[in-house]
């Protein structure tokens, strides 16, 4: 017996995906290191948008197997293709590879030449971000009312007899149809029996014979019995009927026809039988946040410093995106005056001038008042600066921050400068003392500092916060 199965239409079973996840789980350290390195080396805006491929060295993934060492001992190997050798000749060993040879399974685990020393694991952007922000926690995640009702979701809402095909409830529809058929059959049966009994009574009066064992409590048997009787006897007495009886018989003939039609099972699906699942749109709360990116673009911010600031802002942006369903980003750049710009201008346009930090905070205040009602928006701000400011302006900054911070969820200040006391650092430290739960500041002097700064800002406090979704294969 031979069975031929054409499996080409089937999708691949994906039976190895689970095992591939196990590889990721086992090598999560390697993957984490690789991704963090990548973040430092590449621009965050484009990083990992199509997922990331991580090479994992195969030597990490090899379990030891006992085999013979290849330093000692005597082997004999048979090779084909002798041209000139005779017994007892010597010929030099080839360098490098072991010369092929029998290649026993014990040796097969050694690296073959040209074998790729890596396996490549593909990670989706979601997995990448969750690894990147593993263990990071957003302070003051959601305030009371920090959400809007712009989105809706569908929820089940009973059944209807009309609706799109896709929402048809098959089990209910079948049950309806079946039930109706059963009832119709039973009713029709009773009436058919009645009509047949009438005909039987009439015909019996004219014929000599009758059915001896008639039991009207067993409709099915009786129907066929009477039908047989009528089919046999009625033609023999056809001419003898009185006009009244004849009319009656014919009347019941028509009735029986109709009843038989009613009782027969129909393949037609009628509308009353159909059941459709009804759905209702229900508004769902969407957690929403706005993030203000504030950057000093004065002359003292050179390209390298801007790059660091850019990485940080991008990372923060990606982090907030994982936390909030809806995230608005507002870019404010400032010199001595502040203006709201789009992303490209913010990162790539050059502008020079002096520095007045307070103008940017003032601008933010205006935008909040204008567009972002603090009762429905979670407000974050991230400021990147080299710390230069006019001394007279510092007080103005602190004053504005004292006004604004109660409305906000967090204010992150990154000083993109080498370790030296800048004239913004001191006043901001005072601010941090006053608003310890909302104001965070750190210094980053090179791209490698970004991840430490980030984990410093978002280190776990232990306060109950909504948990982020982790991929299944990450160890807890």
């Amino acid at each position, binding site marked *: 017996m031979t069975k031929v199965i054409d499996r080409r239409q089937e999708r691949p079973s994906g039976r190895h995906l689970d095992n591939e996840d196990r590889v990721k789980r086992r090598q999560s350290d390697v993957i984490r290191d690789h991704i963090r390195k990548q973040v430092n080396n590449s621009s965050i805006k484009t990083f990992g948008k199509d997922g990331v491929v991580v090479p994992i060295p195969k030597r990490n993934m090899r379990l030891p197997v*006992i085999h013979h060492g290849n330093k000692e001992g005597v082997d004999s*190997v048979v090779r084909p293709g002798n041209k000139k050798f005779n017994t007892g000749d010597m010929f030099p060993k080839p360098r490098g590879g072991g010369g092929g040879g029998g290649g026993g*399974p014990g040796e097969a685990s050694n690296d073959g030449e040209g074998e790729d020393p890596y396996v490549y694991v593909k990670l989706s952007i979601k997995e990448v971000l969750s690894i990147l922000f593993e263990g990071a926690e957003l302070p003051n995640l959601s305030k009371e009312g920090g959400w809007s009702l712009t989105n809706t979701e569908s929820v089940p809402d009973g059944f209807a007899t009309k609706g799109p095909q896709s929402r048809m409830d098959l089990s209910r529809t079948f049950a309806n149809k079946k039930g109706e058929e059963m009832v119709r059959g039973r009713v029709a049966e009773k009436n058919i029996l009645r009509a047949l009994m009438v005909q039987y009574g009439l015909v019996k009066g004219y014929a000599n014979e009758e059915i001896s064992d008639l039991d009207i409590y067993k409709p099915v048997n009786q129907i066929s019995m009477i039908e047989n009787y009528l089919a046999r006897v009625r033609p023999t007495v056809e001419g003898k009927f009185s006009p009244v009886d004849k009319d009656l018989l014919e009347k019941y003939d028509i009735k029986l026809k109709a009843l038989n039609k009613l009782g027969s099972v129909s393949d037609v699906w009628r509308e009353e039988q159909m059941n459709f699942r009804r759905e209702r749109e229900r508004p769902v709360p969407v957690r929403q946040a706005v993030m203000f990116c504030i950057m000093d673009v004065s002359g003292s911010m050179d390209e390298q410093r801007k790059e660091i600031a850019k990485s940080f802002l991008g990372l923060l942006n990606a982090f907030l995106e994982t936390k909030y369903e809806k995230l608005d980003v507002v870019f404010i750049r400032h010199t001595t005056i502040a203006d709201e710009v789009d992303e490209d201008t913010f990162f790539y346009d050059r502008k020079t001038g002096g520095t007045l930090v307070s103008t940017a905070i003032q601008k933010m205040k205006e935008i909040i008042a204008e567009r972002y009602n603090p009762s429905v928006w979670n407000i974050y701000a991230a400021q990147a600066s080299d710390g230069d400011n006019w001394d007279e302006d510092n007080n103005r900054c602190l004053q504005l921050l004292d006004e604004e911070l109660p409305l906000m969820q967090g204010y992150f200040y990154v000083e993109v400068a080498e370790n030296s006391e800048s004239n913004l650092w001191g006043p901001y430290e005072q601010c941090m003392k006053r608003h310890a739960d909302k104001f965070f500041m750190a210094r980053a002097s090179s791209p490698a500092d970004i991840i430490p700064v980030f984990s410093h800002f978002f280190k776990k406090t232990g306060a109950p916060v909504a948990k982020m979704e982790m991929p299944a294969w990450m160890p807890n």
Partner: protein
Amino acid sequence: MSEEKKNYKEQIAELLSHYEDGEQIFINAYKAKNWKYPVNLKEESKGDPSLPRTWIDLSVKVISIIVSEYGLDCYDNEIQIITAEQMNEALANVGLPVSIPHWENGVKSLAQKREYEENPHLPFEIVINSNPSIAYLMEDNPPWMQQLVIAHACYGHNAFFKNNYMFKDHTDANTIIDDLIRFRDFIYECETKYGWQEVETVMDFCSAMRFMDVYRDIRPKQYQTTEEQKTLKQERVQDKIFEKPIKKFGISKSELNSEFNESAQGRPEYAHRDNENVLMFIADNAPHVPNWAREIMRMRSKISQYFWPQMHTKVFNEGFASYTHYLIMTDLHEMKLMDDGTYLQFTKSHGGVLYQPEFDETRKFRAPDGSIKERPIYNGINPYALGFAIFDDIKRISMEPTAEDKKWFPEFAGNGKWWENIKYAAFHHNDHEGITQYLSPKVMRDFKFFATIDDKSEQSYEIGAIHDRDGYENLRRALAKDNKITDMLPEIRVHDCHERTDRALILRHYVRNGKVLDDVVTPDVLMYMHQLWGHPVVIESVDEDGEILDVITSSRDYDYERSCMEEDVSHYFSVLKM
């Protein structure tokens, strides 16, 4: 045989007469280059349900008629036609339809995907040793290739799996798929109950025990895990603490006492002593291992046992399958069911598979930078070529023996029953045994075999024997030894266990030809074993004279000598007490 042959030709002719294309049906499909070629039954035959309705079915039917003429006993076939993606999936799992949950299989799968991306070259078929035997055929094989792989895999390999004594002894084709499914589900169950870390440790340990997890010579009859499962269930209910005393290597206490009484001097000879299946030994006797872990070890051992004969029969298995497809395709051609052009295509492919490069052969290829380079293409002896040559030569010796053949193979030279001889050779030998018995001087001459002696301490090889009158015997022995897997793998057996003192497990490695264990990997493996056994594990290397050459212990600070002395002393006192 000529009369019978006519008979099967008639059968095929009769079968094909039901179709509109008649005897041209295969040739038409070759021309259409489509194995989905429509087969149209004649009007009068349309009602017969026994007639194949697809071209593949028809090919299988025709081939099976030819095969039954050759008297091959096969398992039922299940032929699955699959895409490249599905083939990749199957390859990552050596063809088995069930993937065991372990990260090692994930690595294989990832590596296979990568390899396919870089070098999109896939085999034409895979066949696995189960009942029914499952064969995967690639969808893009041309029609004649589908017939070739059906003959090769579904009848050649299949018959070998069913009849070869090693497969009969070591594997159970009826239950392998069910076993795998049960194993997979059991692992998932354990992971939810006891945590994935625990299960992974045990699975890693089992992988590290590779080649120490099989019964090399014969598979014990009670090699079933169902009984263990029963006790497992009971213990789960009772929620016992998993700790059991070492069972004296399987001997009950009373038996042990009687043995002591009989011979008060010396230590008892253990029943499980010299057990080469160390994994099973640990599964049975490890003192602190929970029962689910024992079950996993046993199942892993069972799977390894399933693959054990495949390693031993590469040459004969592939050789026999190649010879079968060669016979069948030639028969098709002889019956004029296959045209000359297609037969030429077949012979080209057949020759390519059977090509044996010489040891120093190189081939030119174009490097990515455009330059032409040479690289060696020799990669060991091609099992297809060697196996096919041996079987082909058995036919020659049976039919037209020379004086040399009569001297070398007096049992069957010239007896005319070439097919019987081939079947006997294939089904009753593994590679080592088969080559020892059937490698003829002619094959050695054709291959121009020569044996090189590789002393690791020397700078050059010495030629041990060549294909001349004095060399044939030695050469044949050397080639047979190359194919003796048990010689290549270190022979490690359970030797002893210090069950009175520190419960150390003593293994013995029997050194052959001065080959010692790799000193980098062995301690790592011992660490794994220590973890599961719960007590120190030691490997002694012993040479042919019983002299201990080397001792490797699982932890560096373990004093093996002292442990041995303590064990002896405690044994001495226990004997004195009685």
